[in-house]
């Protein structure tokens, strides 16, 4: 079946991570002939989401393949529940005749019941949020790729203060409702935030030019904010630590504030079924415009040759076939070492963890979707990003929550993250029906990922290397890099112009050169029934 794969393309993209997929879509969209390959049998690479079965395969694969361990290591999976329920084989319905109308008892989960519902899990390797006014949201809307995806609003931002979880006031309603901040503090906070939002880039640089070598915390202290407020602004809003440079803190604050009020109570959106859907949305657009897709297709060798007309052609050997292209776009993890120049500097790797729990870290009337920025526990630690998603996001079956931890590595994933897990979960296993204050952790996975997010140059002009996922909260760096790569391949061309809606595509009879796109005058959303 692979044999009818054409061999000559303008652009070949290897790897289906976020950056690669955006570039593939952008090239295909303006008419480039694109082939998109992945060595794996699924989309996304390190950006993928897995169902529970797929995740088990991923864990096995990492543990058995040394090449994989270059990217993912220290992988440790642990269960806190029984393999199978002891009484399950006995008649289950007879158990509770009394409380038929009472509060439904908490379900007792077993490893087997996880396996039975494996399809309902979508667990992310690179969980990320979108800022409501961030570059990815704008790109999804302007390119019309938004129609392939659905999102949920993050319902609350939490912080860890005085040894407990506290909601961070985001909207006016929150600010009024909160008792954690006094009225004088509220005024102070609002005055400062309002001034930050008001600055444009130039004014900002001007205003803060004396603060270049100082920290954001020093600035906040200088402004007379109380320790409580400093905590909110620095840790929860700017997502920083005591050492965060002032200007960076101001910029992060502005980004947070600018995204408020567009889609929900917080500045953030979460993609339904996980972040791993997003690269696929770009792949779909690439395919709709003629891009050819082939997974399970490792590449063996990359070479360059000079064609008769003096142009450089990149050739790729894959499954005993030679593929030619003008430009090769390749994910860092698939890229042969000799094409990278210079070797990327050693960077700080990423520590990650995933937990599956039987309740939210902080009870709420409606199902919450939570961002928690956990401040460093000691001066040596880094801040930890915590994301909690529930069944409404398509991440897990009813009754469960999936919680992600992400931080920059200090020692290893488990040492870096376990102390925080112990603060917000009950890690002791045992009776799941017991009414505990903290949710029970039922399953956990710790791992480290090599940080391959730094931009990398290639030794060949027509080979473009895409970075891997960073530890950051959003996709902004991926979008920015994809656009830069696109501009190198297609200088002067528009980056992902709006794709027409199906109603706008008008087919003329007996044209053999394919459909032409034409914008109709009528409202694109028109629903005129055919007949």
């Amino acid at each position: 079946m692979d044999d009818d794969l054409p061999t000559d393309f303008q652009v070949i993209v290897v790897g289906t991570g976020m950056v690669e997929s955006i570039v593939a879509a952008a090239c295909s969209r303006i008419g480039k002939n694109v082939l998109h390959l992945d060595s794996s049998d699924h989309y996304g690479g390190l950006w993928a989401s897995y169902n529970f079965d797929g995740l088990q395969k991923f864990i096995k694969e990492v543990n058995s393949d040394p090449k994989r361990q270059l990217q993912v290591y220290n992988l440790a999976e642990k269960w806190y529940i029984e393999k199978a329920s002891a009484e399950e084989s006995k008649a289950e319905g007879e158990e509770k005749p009394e409380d038929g109308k009472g509060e439904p008892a908490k379900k007792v989960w077993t490893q087997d019941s996880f396996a039975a519902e494996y399809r309902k899990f979508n667990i992310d390797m690179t969980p990320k949020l979108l800022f409501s006014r961030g570059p990815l949201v704008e790109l999804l809307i302007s390119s019309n790729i938004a129609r392939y995806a659905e999102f949920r609003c993050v319902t609350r931002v939490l912080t860890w203060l005085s040894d407990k979880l506290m909601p961070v006031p985001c909207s006016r309603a929150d600010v009024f409702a909160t008792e954690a901040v006094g009225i004088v503090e509220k005024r102070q906070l609002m005055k400062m935030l309002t001034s930050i939002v008001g600055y444009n880039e130039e004014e900002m640089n001007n205003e803060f030019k004396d603060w270049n070598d100082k920290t954001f915390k020093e600035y906040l202290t200088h402004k007379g904010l109380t320790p409580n407020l400093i905590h909110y602004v620095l840790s929860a809003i700017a997502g920083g630590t005591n050492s965060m440079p002032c200007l960076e803190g101001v910029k992060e604050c502005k980004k947070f504030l600018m995204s408020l009020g567009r889609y929900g109570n917080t500045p953030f959106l979460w993609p339904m079924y996980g972040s791993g859907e997003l690269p696929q949305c770009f792949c779909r657009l690439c395919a709709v415009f003629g891009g050819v897709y082939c997974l399970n297709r490792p590449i063996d060798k990359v070479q360059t040759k000079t064609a008769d007309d003096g142009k450089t052609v990149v050739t790729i050997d894959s499954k005993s076939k030679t593929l030619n292209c003008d430009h090769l776009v390749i994910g860092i993890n698939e890229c042969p070492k000799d094409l990278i120049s210079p070797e990327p500097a050693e960077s700080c790797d990423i520590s990650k963890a995933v937990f599956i729990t039987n309740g939210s870290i902080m009870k709420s009337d409606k199902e919450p979707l939570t961002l928690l920025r956990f401040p460093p526990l000691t001066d040596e630690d880094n801040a930890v990003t915590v994301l909690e998603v529930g069944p409404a996001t398509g991440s897990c079956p009813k009754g469960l929550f999936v919680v992600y931890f992400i931080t920059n590595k200090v020692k290893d994933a488990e040492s870096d993250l376990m102390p925080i897990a112990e603060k917000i979960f009950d890690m002791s296993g045992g009776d799941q029906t017991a009414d505990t204050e903290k949710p029970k952790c039922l399953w956990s996975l710790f791992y480290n990922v090599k940080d391959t997010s730094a931009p990398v140059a290639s030794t060949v002009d027509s080979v473009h290397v895409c970075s891997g996922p960073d530890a950051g909260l959003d996709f902004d760096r991926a979008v920015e890099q994809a656009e830069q790569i696109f501009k190198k391949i297609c200088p002067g061309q528009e980056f992902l112009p709006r794709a027409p809606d199906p109603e706008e595509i008008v087919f003329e009879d007996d044209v053999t050169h394919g459909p032409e796109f034409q914008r109709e005058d009528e409202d694109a959303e028109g629903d005129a029934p055919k007949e």
Partner: protein
Amino acid sequence: MAKTYDYLFKLLLIGDSGVGKTSILFRFSEDAFNISFISTIGIDFKIRTIDLDGKKVKLQIWDTAGQERFRTITTAYYRGSMGIMLVYDVTNEKSFENIKNWIRNIEENASADVEKMILGNKCDLEAKRQVSKERGEQLAVEYQIKFIETSAKDSLNVESAFYTLARDIKAKMEKKQKEASNPAGARSGGHQLRNEPQRKPTSWLSRCSLL
């Protein structure tokens, strides 16, 4: 904008390359047949609103965009689909055998209660036929899925196939609604991003100044 329909159904076309998925789509949505659509370029989905028992049902029918060619359909393609047309070519044995693989693919990725239907397309090409109607029927019985032979070229049964699938989805949906007494059309999915912000960005600032 006022809603011009009572129900919106997302339908998918699935099956091997070249079985005529795009032709079926065009026959149904445009009542046209053009053999020059060799592969599926630029076509995302097509829309047709039909009348079912006095209800306006908007069918949004998605094409594979050629991603079936090397079995690389994205999991995202299946999200939120309510009905799937499994298409094979009666003149191509392999495409018929692959229906089982596609069903497995659907079971893996689509929602568990998605309505399915099998179509044996190109039934106008009697002389080249490799798969008998009986075998198609047998397969359908085996999986308890409805089956019909179609010809997008001769406009045979395409219309009735979509009506049948839509009717089955509608019946299932109304049954569910009765049981759960959900408001019509309520969906459990997320939100799609639109260009119009729900609130003006400046409102945050004005809210600040209220304090």
